[in-house]
């Protein structure tokens, strides 16, 4: 009766597919399941544009990539993990090339690399400016080769089944029928992405609601470094649609209302003339790290130098000097997006941009092997926090992260699964029945609710933006924490219009909102407790980095009916002791 597999992957994006393929290759005799609330090609990996970093060229070294990543992370990254990540990266990217990913090439047929923010040497592999799309489709199409991988497309996971001290499966709703069923497994890998949708303006698609983070959180795993939320400096105003960092990698510049390249005022080096062959200079000006660039926008705004727009303040990203030919060759998608969603042609006009929420450095606490604190439960990708990204992620490290840790999770899950002999089926089925009843009682059968989903969701995003934005302060953060507690309470009174079975997307919306409220609290409470400024977490009341007290990861643990409990875990330092984080040097 029950559905049973050896390894179960939740999430069919880059990390999930890579994990499933790794598991299938590690032991073709095991059966692997991928459970995803959307068809895999809809996963948000598809929207990534710029590229994927890996050391491949003669002028680059592993040590340089490690140093860039560690300093980019403002020393909050675990250095042993970063070392492993950087060493594993080239092989993973080559594997993807062998699997058909159409990496852009040099004239001699070798893979090409482009400059990217925060990196001293060019090492970002790219597939035009739709790298995530090509990477995802290459992985998805390759996964079709493996008979041992079975997919559950449009099944929504609602709970991790933990019994006898280990994770033994999940409950999930088949959206077509509305039926919730347990799916048992010897090992579970969570690859459900981040949760940018807790903020009002984000590059993230609708599906990025932190589901997997919430699943692990409820099962007792800690959420690590949740306060570190990356704002991408160049999103379109209003929609938040991403304009890739590659636009700056190819030489695009950021100017304020006076046409001035304002980044030069903020210790990011000196600007070169745009026609200088050495422009853009790595780790300088527009190729500084994302957290600093987003913070510069805020400072310019405070000075009154930003440009007024219908959706708030913007600055201009100018790529006109690249010329139509180069734009069509290297940034065609940027042109398409600007024309469709900003109403301008970047060949002739600058693009209005502003920082928007893009990525969560934080996530489910895992070790270097993608293991969580719960035996049998693994996590990889944006869902997880290993941590290689620390307080700020460098652009193009994330796509590589999917591959490296997806593969590791898959291999680890296979090794774990092979050791498990029995499963506690009866107890698991009882848990599943309870979960079925919980969802039915709280949402489907509930008739006395008063609040609409959208009301609570909008208030949540508003308070997150107000208290947990780019610059934070104690009082607004505390207000956000209180507001979220209030919303957690009001959530109990939410009502659905839709009580049917087939593709009840209102039910999935309310479950997603439940997940978002959980992780939002983890973000807010971790932020209020970290009394320092580091990377993307900037406190105007504690403007300095405090290595003495805070060279540690925040761990947020769920409590039954209150705010999360915050604890700390020291960062692993190997060869690179904390130093000053500087950019703009020659």
């Amino acid at each position: 009766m029950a559905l049973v597999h050896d390894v179960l992957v939740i999430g069919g994006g880059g990390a999930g597919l890579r994990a499933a393929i790794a598991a299938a290759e590690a032991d073709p005799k095991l059966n692997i399941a991928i459970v995803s609330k959307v068809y895999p090609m809809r996963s948000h990996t598809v929207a990534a544009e710029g590229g994927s970093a890996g050391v491949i060229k003669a002028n680059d070294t592993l040590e340089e990539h490690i140093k860039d990543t560690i300093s980019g992370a403002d020393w909050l990254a675990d250095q042993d993990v970063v070392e492993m990540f950087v060493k594993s990266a080239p092989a993973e990217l080559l594997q993807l090339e062998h699997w058909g990913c159409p990496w852009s090439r040099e004239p001699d047929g070798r893979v090409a690399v482009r400059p990217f923010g925060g990196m001293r040497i060019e090492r970002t592999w790219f597939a035009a400016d739709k790298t995530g799309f090509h990477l995802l489709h290459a992985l998805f199409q390759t996964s079709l080769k493996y008979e041992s991988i079975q997919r559950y497309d449009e099944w929504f996971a609602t709970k991790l089944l933990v019994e006898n001290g280990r994770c033994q499966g999940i409950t999930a709703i088949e959206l077509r029928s509305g039926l919730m069923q347990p799916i048992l497994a010897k090992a579970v890998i969570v690859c459900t992405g981040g949760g940018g949708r807790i903020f009002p303006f984000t590059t993230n698609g609708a599906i990025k609601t932190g589901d997997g983070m919430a699943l692990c959180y409820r099962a007792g795993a800690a959420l690590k470094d949740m306060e570190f939320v990356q704002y991408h400096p160049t999103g379109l105003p209003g929609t938040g649609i991403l304009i890739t960092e590659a636009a700056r990698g190819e030489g695009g510049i950021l100017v304020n209302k006076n046409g001035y390249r304002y980044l030069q005022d903020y210790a990011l080096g000196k600007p070169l003339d745009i026609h200088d062959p050495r422009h853009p200079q790595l780790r300088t000006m527009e190729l500084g790290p994302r957290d600093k660039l987003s913070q510069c926008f805020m400072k310019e705004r405070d000075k009154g130098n930003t440009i007024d727009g219908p959706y708030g303040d913007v600055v201009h990203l100018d790529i006109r000097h690249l010329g139509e030919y180069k734009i069509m060759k290297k940034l065609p998608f940027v042109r398409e997006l600007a024309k469709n969603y900003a109403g301008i042609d970047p060949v002739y006009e600058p693009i209005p941009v502003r920082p928007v929420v893009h990525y969560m450095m934080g996530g489910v606490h895992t070790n270097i092997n993608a293991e969580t604190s719960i035996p049998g439960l693994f996590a990889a990708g944006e869902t997880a926090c290993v941590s290689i990204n620390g307080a700020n992620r460098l652009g193009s490290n994330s796509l590589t992260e999917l591959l490296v840790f997806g593969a590791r999770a898959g291999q680890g899950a296979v090794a774990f699964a092979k050791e498990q002999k029995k499963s506690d089926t009866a107890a698991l089925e009882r848990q599943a029945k309870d979960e079925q009843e919980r969802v039915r009682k709280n949402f489907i059968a509930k008739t006395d609710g008063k609040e609409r989903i959208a009301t609570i969701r909008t208030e949540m995003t508003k308070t997150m933006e107000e208290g947990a934005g780019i610059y934070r302060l104690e009082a607004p953060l505390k207000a956000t924490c209180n507001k979220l507690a209030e919303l957690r309470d009001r959530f109990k009174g939410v009502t659905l219009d839709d009580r049917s079975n087939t593709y009840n997307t209102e039910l999935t919306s309310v479950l997603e909102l439940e997940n978002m409220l959980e992780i939002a609290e983890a973000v807010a409470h971790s932020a209020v407790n970290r009394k320092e400024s580091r990377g993307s977490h900037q406190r105007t009341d504690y403007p300095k980095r405090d290595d003495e007290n805070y060279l540690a990861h925040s761990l947020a643990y769920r409590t039954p009916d209150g705010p999360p409990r915050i604890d700390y875990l020291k960062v692993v330092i190997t060869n690179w002791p904390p130093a000053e984080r500087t950019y703009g040097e020659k």
Partner: protein
Amino acid sequence: MSEAYRRPVSDTWWLKNPNYRFFMYRELTAVFVLAFLLVFLYFLRQLASGPEAYNAFLRRLSSPWSFIFHTAALVAACFHSSTWFNLTPKAVVVRKGEEKIPDAFLITPNYVGWLTISVIIFLIATWS
């Protein structure tokens, strides 16, 4: 579990948008081409059957109906041919380095060839 709903496709699907209609007209030209071919085969047969049969056929050829039919068939054939000539770049891709050569380079030779062969046949036919 409930059944998915299958929407019926109507017989007049091709009236729904101008591209579908264009497609149907293009396909219908084949009817005229076929009809002309049948007339032509009959012509050959009459030619082989001796001067009386051949002359009878020639008289019918000069009737108004025949004129209308042949004009329509010629228009249809020209339409048919030019739509297919214009679609050549879709079926045949020639690249110079990374770029495709301009469509005109593939389309024009068809028209030139057509014109040339037509002229040659015309000259042969009127030579005596």
